[in-house]
């Protein structure tokens, strides 16, 4: 079947390639492919593509990628998908960061966004098909050139070969001829057993520049005539600048302008140090704010009050009250998790220039669509006249799906009529973060006479991310991100009831690596462990008993048992704990080995064994890196992290009062990838959720004390020991 693209004009194609360009799109009627080679007589496409690959006359292959390379290795992984099916010589394959455009929106999320661990899994079929289509066209072009049947030609290492006549041509030589051919709509994909690139070791494209110090991050952007701005943000929620000394700031050498914006007071200067000095001279008097008494104690108090209120029902299987009534053992526990900061190493920044008929934005961002929309709104220009240049990002973890700093740069450029780079200080970055919400979970469980988990009643109170970010996803007072991990537990339990209390807080909350999966599984997997111990069952066997209809989960747990030598004695004084969680399409289990100094409350984590089933493992080294990073991210949160509040605002200001995990605290991490034919899953986030509960369960195994209050600082561990 071939597609005819001659008439309808749903989309004006905007990327011009030299040689052969293939567009691929996931449409409501299935995957579509098109020959999108540019030129005078180029045809408009009749579907919206989500990806493009280019085969150039110089024999190189370029994959255009709309998603952001955050260090997760997705740019390289996406190129691997194309190269595999194209039979390309890996040395000739590269990627180009695409601009913000309709064409590069995620086929499922309908936004150009890098989140939800989706970059590879949402393009696994799409890019392989695009590569396969190009391969078939190149073979056809060669067969036509040599006047031989296509079946006699084969492709390998960026060449088409005709063995019979001992002839071959490179893809570059064939690209112009192939560009004149129709695209096969259903090219054959290779069998996984024939993969030569997928599943193999590759070096990441972005690493050499990051090692040389030449990779351009947002903060490194310089454009002609640019000035630099810092913004003094209010020190508390709802505060406004009542007065400030603009004249004093302007006296500072190099200060160009003082400009109030919605989010604070900006000082624009020729250099950053001048902007800092100008800001310090402002002497701002702030109004008293909306919640002047907000501090750590009141935050927790609000949670404990909220959990008493009736919530919205998020899940109701069977009859939990009846099952609890009939249970031979009943148990209840409460878990509290604090607000967490992203603490990306590169603080928020953005460079923007609103000119008369064009707007340019240079941003380390996870949301090209959000940045472009902000540009269009503030400049008054249509989105297609807003250019988004995505830079490397010094960490993302969800933080860069927010656009406040982009808005600030745009507002200032509009006011000053020149390019402006806004840089937040580390302190501004902590104090104005969109935090991982604190949560409080209260769970009641029941075991039947055989010690099986028969009832699970779960109430969760937390502030809502979706209500602000994507209110359309909030239905019947349920924020789906606040109940993930509870409504979609890995285990089969006959009677499950879940209730959500949406807490109104002045503290803004946002996506933080694995979102609700970063918090709820701590409560769920800790409580599972508590119930196993109450029923005198081995926690791993107890879980297997509830995974009878979850083959993927069962395999991960079984491999975890084998790799951790579960059941065999552990070193004296150490404890071992496990946890499991399926999120973002992948199933991950960890076993943590730990020891606890009962006098100081100090925890030492010796080893973490991680087992992952992500379906086809496209780029194993990047997957391992994401598991290592996810484990460390999760361990850092579990052991150390907590945002502090005081006087109606954020007290936490820098890494000295928000310590993150260091090398000496990092255990040995073993990653095992299950060989799997399951559906492809994500890898950026799923390593995080099981860390905290596996650690808590290991501590219980070591000293018989439950930690239900994060972080597991020596102070919190000691108070748990005292209470026990």
């Amino acid at each position, binding site marked *: 079947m071939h597609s005819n693209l001659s008439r309808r004009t749903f989309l004006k194609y905007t990327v011009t390639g030299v040689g052969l360009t293939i567009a691929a799109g996931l449409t409501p009627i299935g995957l579509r492919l098109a020959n999108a080679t540019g030129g005078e007589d180029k045809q408009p496409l009749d579907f919206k593509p989500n990806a493009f690959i280019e085969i150039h006359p110089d024999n190189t292959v370029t994959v255009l990628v709309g998603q952001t390379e955050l260090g997760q290795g997705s740019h390289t992984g996406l190129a691997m998908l194309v190269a595999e099916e194209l039979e390309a010589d890996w040395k000739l394959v590269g990627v180009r960061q695409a601009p913000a455009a309709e064409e590069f929106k995620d086929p499922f999320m309908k936004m150009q966004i890098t989140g939800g661990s989706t970059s590879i899994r949402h393009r696994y079929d799409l890019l392989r098909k695009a590569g396969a289509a190009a391969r078939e066209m190149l073979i056809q072009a060669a067969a036509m050139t040599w006047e031989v049947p296509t079946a006699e030609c084969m492709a390998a290492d960026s060449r088409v070969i005709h063995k019979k006549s001992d002839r071959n041509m490179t893809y570059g030589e064939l690209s112009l001829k192939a560009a004149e051919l129709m695209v096969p709509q259903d090219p054959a994909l290779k069998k996984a057993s024939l993969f030569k690139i997928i599943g193999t070791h590759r070096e990441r494209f972005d690493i050499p520049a990051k*090692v*040389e110090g030449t990779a351009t991050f947002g903060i490194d952007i*310089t454009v002609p005539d640019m000035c*630099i701005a810092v913004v003094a943000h209010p020190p508390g929620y709802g505060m406004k600048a009542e007065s400030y000394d603009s004249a004093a700031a302007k006296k500072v050498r190099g200060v160009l302008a003082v400009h109030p914006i919605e989010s604070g007071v900006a000082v624009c200067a020729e250099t950053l140090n001048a902007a800092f000095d100008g800001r310090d001279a402002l002497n701002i008097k702030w109004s008293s704010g909306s919640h002047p008494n907000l501090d750590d104690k009141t935050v927790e108090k609000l949670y404990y009050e909220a959990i008493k209120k009736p919530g919205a029902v998020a899940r109701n299987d069977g009859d939990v009250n009846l099952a609890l009534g009939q249970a031979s053992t009943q148990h209840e526990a409460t878990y509290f998790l604090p607000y967490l900061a992203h603490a990306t*190493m590169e603080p928020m920044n953005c460079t923007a220039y609103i000119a008369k008929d064009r707007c340019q934005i240079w941003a380390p961002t996870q949301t090209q669509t959000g940045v472009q929309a902000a540009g269009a709104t503030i400049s008054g220009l249509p989105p297609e006249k807003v250019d988004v240049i995505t830079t*490397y990002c010094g960490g993302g973890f969800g933080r860069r799906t927010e656009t406040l700093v982009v808005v600030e740069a745009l507002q200032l450029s509009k006011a000053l009529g020149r390019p402006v780079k806004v840089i937040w200080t580390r302190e501004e970055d902590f104090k104005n973060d969109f935090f991982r919400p604190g949560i409080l979970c209260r769970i009641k469980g029941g075991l039947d006479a055989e010690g099986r988990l028969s009832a699970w009643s779960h109430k969760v109170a937390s502030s809502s991310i979706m209500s602000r970010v994507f209110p359309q996803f909030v239905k019947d007072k349920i924020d789906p991100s606040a109940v993930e991990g509870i409504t979609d537990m890995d285990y089969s339990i006959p009677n499950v009831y879940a209730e959500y209390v949406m807490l109104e807080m002045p503290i803004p909350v946002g996506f933080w690596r694995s979102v609700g999966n970063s918090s709820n599984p701590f409560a769920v997997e800790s409580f599972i462990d508590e119930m196993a111990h109450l029923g005198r069952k081995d926690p791993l066997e107890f879980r297997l008993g509830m995974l009878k209809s979850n083959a993927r989960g069962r395999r991960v747990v079984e491999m975890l048992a084998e790799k951790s030598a579960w059941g065999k004695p552990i070193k004296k004084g150490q404890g071992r704990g496990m946890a499991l969680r399926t999120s973002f399409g992948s199933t991950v289990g960890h076993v943590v080995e730990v020891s606890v100094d009962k006098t100081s409350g100090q925890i030492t984590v010796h080893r973490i064994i991680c087992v992952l089933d992500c379906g086809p493992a496209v780029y194993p080294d990047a997957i391992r890196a994401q598991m*290592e990073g996810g484990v460390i991210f999760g361990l850092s949160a579990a052991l150390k992290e907590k945002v502090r509040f005081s006087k109606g605002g954020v007290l936490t200001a820098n890494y000295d009062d928000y310590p993150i*995990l*260091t090398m000496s605290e990092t255990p040995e991490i073993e990653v095992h990838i299950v060989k799997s034919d399951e559906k492809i899953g994500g890898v950026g986030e799923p390593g995080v959720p099981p860390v905290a509960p596996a650690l808590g369960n290991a501590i219980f195994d070591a000293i018989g004390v439950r930690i239900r209050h994060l972080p597991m600082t020596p102070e919190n561990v000691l108070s748990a020991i005292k209470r026990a």
Partner: protein
Amino acid sequence: MISLNVNGQGYQVDVPSGVPLLWVLRDYLHLTGTKYSCGIGECGACTVLIDDQIERACTVPVQDVNGSQIITIEGIAKNHPVKRAWVLEQVPQCGYCQSGQIMQAVSLLKDNQNPDEDEIIAAMDDILCRCGSYPRIKRAIKTAVELQRKEG
């Protein structure tokens, strides 16, 4: 005017006294490989070598290094064993902290040709990575030691 020697090159910079070396490197000399992250000497992203000692450029007033030999990431040769080991072990994720990590590792190997695991951890423990590249940093330093040994 302040005289600076960075990566073997002399510069005359018109910058007010008290400005941290970090901003002078980045904004005046356009050597942006050295990164800003905390501004208080807590994270190590801005680590440079000053007269062979590791320093946090965000806490060094520029006038204090008048006449000193400053080495930044741009001044470490591409074929330096540490840089090669960083590629071999695929260390960086986001990469933002890596200039500082590499500078600190270069300094470690200058002082100690064959550090053991504990010495590596002690030398690298005060430099933060939010992506969690620590296991690979450790491995890369061991690889760099091997490269150095093989090549004398």
